[in-house]
Each structure stands twice: as C-alpha cells, then as structure tokens.
C-alpha cells in the first residue's frame, strides 16, 4: 500500500488559472478551463472537467460506494472498505493487454481528503456537480468562486423508514426542499395514518414518490427503508449517470417512473454485454460481474435495491456466489 505523504501544492499549475494541483502517491491532478489532467507513472489521462467533477462528486459523497466507480473507460477507484485502489487502465482491456495499467492502494480517509479538497477547489460558483446539466451553470473557465454548499450535502440514509421518530425527516418547502421542476405533476398527497395510542411508532406510512420528487440531486441513491441489510435507495435520475458503476455484489433496479436506458459492460474488460431499457414498473438485476451507466431522457424515479452485507464482496470475488441472482 502507498503511504506517500499527501501534498497539495499551493499554486495553480500552468497558465495561472487559479486552480490548485493535487498529488497523492504517484498520481497528480491538475485542471484547466476544460479538462482534468491526471498523470501517473505510466502516462497521462484527460477527462472533460464537467464529467470529472460529476464523477468526483459521487465518489466523495458515496465514500467510494460499492465496488468500482469508473470515471470513464480508463480512470477510477475500487473500494475495499478501509482502503481504496485508484487506477488508470486497470479495467480496460487494451491497457491491460499492453501492460499500461497502473494502480495504487490508499487509506480511504487519505484519498477522500484529497478528493474533497480537489472538489472544493475545482468547483466554481454556479456549477453544481450533483445537479442535472440543464439545472446548473458551467464548470468551465478560470477559477471563479466556489460552490461549497452544493458539494457538502450529506447523504441521506434512513435507519428504518423515512418519517419515523429519530429517522430521516420529510422534505418540505419550508426547508427549501421544493418539488423539482420535472416532477411538478407528482401528487404530494399524504397517506391516511390512524394509529391507536401507543402505536404511533409502528403504524406509519409516507408518500415516497413525493419525497423523491423533492430531491435536488441526481444519480445519488438515498436509503428510504431498511429490512436488516436490505436497503431501498430512492434516487432521481436525469441525463447521464456520470460514472460507470461496477458493483461488487448483485444490485437491483426498480423503475418507479418514466424510463432509463442502461449500457451494460463486462466489469473487468469493458466489453459490451447488453442494453437494458427499463420503464415504469420494470424490475431488473444488475449482476455482480458487470458495470453499468444509465441514460434518463426525462427526470425519472429509480429505486436502487442494495444488500449492505459487508461479507458479500469477498464471497462474490472468491466464486462462492455466482454473479447472477437467480438461476432458472
């Protein structure tokens, strides 16, 4: 594991655009008006800065998530839950064949700190990397201001169910959590709840679709209900999932509204496997050996169903569990 000292250089590189450069291990990061530049011992990689910041936002907000967060077909991270691999070309067949792949392992806290600092410095005023492109300003140009409010949102995780005492609260106009512009037709009615005295914490229901309609982020699952390790994670999706997610376990999608089209690729090589079109009411598994990216033409509601059991990555990696959830 790399234990190199984290360094963040004080001065921006290159043409005095005002941005800091960042280094950890043998990876170095810089940005200009349009691109993130990543250098590592075997080479250089460039990612459009808006895509990079959107991917970086998810990686930071999700604590490196489950499995692999591919920023694109070359660069990404693999979560080992305490440590994290950062790589170039590791999951790209061409890079691997040419032995041009590169990976370093870091303490998760160290890499997260560098990523957080990078996100804070490189996100300009007016650009929200969690918003849909149509909802926010541009990420381009020289450094101007910041958007700390946007990048420091906390991930919402229900312990049992939204709305129960000591659990996540409802989203309200008063709290600034207004209905998203593309969900103004989603009913906001409340269920009728008639709890007998003493059972107020047990007899409970809430309008989940209304709750989701007030989310101000995209492609950012938040837990709304739990049954032990089974987590329903609702999310609103619009345009493109910034990352290609390679899960280290099976996950499932329930399309609650509208439509998402998914590109499915082999998790290790990137070879295309399928296109999955999901419409309202559709339910589909994402096997444990693939990666996926979604395209949502209209803002849609998706429920991502996760199994939070921490033993699963090793059980799938060892072959104890098959990557497909059901055999028939």
């Amino acid at each position, binding site marked *: 594991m790399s234990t190199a000292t984290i360094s963040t250089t004080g001065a921006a590189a290159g043409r005095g655009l005002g941005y800091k450069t960042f280094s950890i291990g043998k990876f170095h990061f810089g940005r200009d008006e349009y691109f993130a530049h990543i250098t590592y011992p075997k080479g250089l990689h460039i990612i459009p800065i808006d895509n990079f910041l959107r991917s970086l936002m998810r990686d930071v907000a999700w604590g490196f998530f489950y499995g692999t967060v591919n920023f694109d077909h070359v660069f990404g991270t693999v979560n080992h839950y305490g440590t994290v691999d950062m790589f170039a070309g590791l999951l790209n067949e061409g890079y691997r064949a040419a032995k041009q792949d590169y990976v370093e392992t870091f303490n998760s806290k160290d890499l997260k700190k560098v990523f957080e600092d990078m996100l804070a410095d490189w996100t300009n005023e007016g650009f929200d990397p969690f918003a849909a492109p149509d909802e926010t300003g541009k990420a381009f140009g020289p450094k101007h201001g910041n958007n700390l409010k946007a990048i420091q949102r906390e991930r919402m995780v229900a312990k*049992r*169910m939204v709305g129960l005492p000591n659990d996540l609260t409802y989203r309200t106009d008063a709290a600034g959590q207004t209905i998203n*512009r593309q*969900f*103004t*037709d989603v*009913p906001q009615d409340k*269920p*009728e*709840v*008639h*709890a*007998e005295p003493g*059972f107020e914490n*047990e*007899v*409970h*229901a*809430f*309008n*989940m*679709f*209304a709750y989701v309609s007030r989310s101000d982020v995209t492609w950012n699952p938040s837990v*709304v*209900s*739990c*049954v032990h*390790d*089974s987590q*329903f994670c609702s999310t609103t999706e619009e345009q493109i999932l910034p990352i290609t997610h390679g899960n280290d376990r*099976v996950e499932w999608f*329930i*399309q*609650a*509204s509208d*439509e998402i089209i998914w590109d499915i690729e082999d998790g290790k090589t990137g*070879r*295309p*496997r*399928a*296109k*999955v079109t999901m*419409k*309202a*009411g*559709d*339910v*589909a*598994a994402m*096997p444990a050996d693939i990666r996926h990216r979604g395209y949502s033409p*209209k*803002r849609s*509601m998706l*429920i991502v*169903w996760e*199994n939070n059991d921490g033993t699963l990555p090793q059980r799938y990696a060892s072959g104890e569990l098959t*990557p497909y*959830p*059901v055999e*028939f």
Partner: protein
Amino acid sequence: MSSPQTYFGSLKNYQKGGVQVISGDPKHYAFSNCFEVASKSKPYEKVAVGKNLKYVIEAVRAEGTSPWFAADHDEAALVMDGEIEVHYVKPDQPQVPAGKEGSIKLSGEPKGKKMGWVKVRRGHMALLPAGSAYQFRSATPGVLLVQTILGDCTVERWAEICQTKA
C-alpha cells in the same frame, strides 16, 4: 414551457422495456414488470420479482381482503397502483417463531390489540412492523411491492415472469 408529464404505469396502463443482449443471457438480469406480474397473479399471492440472497421483493396483486400475515421482522410495502388499506393488530401471543424469516399466513385475525390502520395510494410506502399482524383491503385491484425476506409465503416462478429470450 410545457408542463412535465411523469409516467408511473398501472395495472391498466403499463409499458415494458427489455434486455437487448449483445453478449450473454437475458436471464442474468431477471427482467420483469410488476404490473404484468400482478395482472397474472391471484389476489395476495406474493410473487418474487427481486431476490438478493435471502432478501426478496414481492409483487402483490391487492384485490379484496387479504389473509392476515405476520413476520418476525419489519417489512415495507410500496404501492405502485391503487388505494389500499392496511390494518394492524398486536397479537397477545407471538404468531411467528423468533428468528423465523419471511412472512407467514395466519389462519385468521389473531387475538390482540388493534394498532390502527393506514390508507395508502400510489407512491406511498407503509411499514409492516415486526411482531404485528397485518391485513390488506382493496376495493379495486392494485399493486404492492413488498420489501421483505424470503419465506413461506414467497412464490418463485422466475421462468414465467422474466424475459428469457434475447
């Protein structure tokens, strides 16, 4: 600016997507549609449409009055279509062996204290709390997705409900 039109689907009006295979088997995605499943189910038959080891999502056609069910753990019911009442009783005696996973069907309403009831519509999610007994009542056909654990009531018929051909 045109008003948005959010499409939810229903028993009477749904569209189904699908898997376009480039390499592999469509069965790997266990692709189904909960409205289609419910349209072919018996009332309150709990058909698995999702499975992650011991955890399942059951699609339930809510029509008429259901049996009484109980589980030793929480469950959550999301309404995808319809208007459904859920009535709860706290049994005087536990109805489910401690640690048993999944819901069980009771022979009738257990003796106990009425806990209350909820009326839920599309998009609403109701808690089915551990240790309670619950009954669904729906005047017209609706669809529930129940987040739970595989159990005695879970019906698995994947080959019938899932896309099997590319």
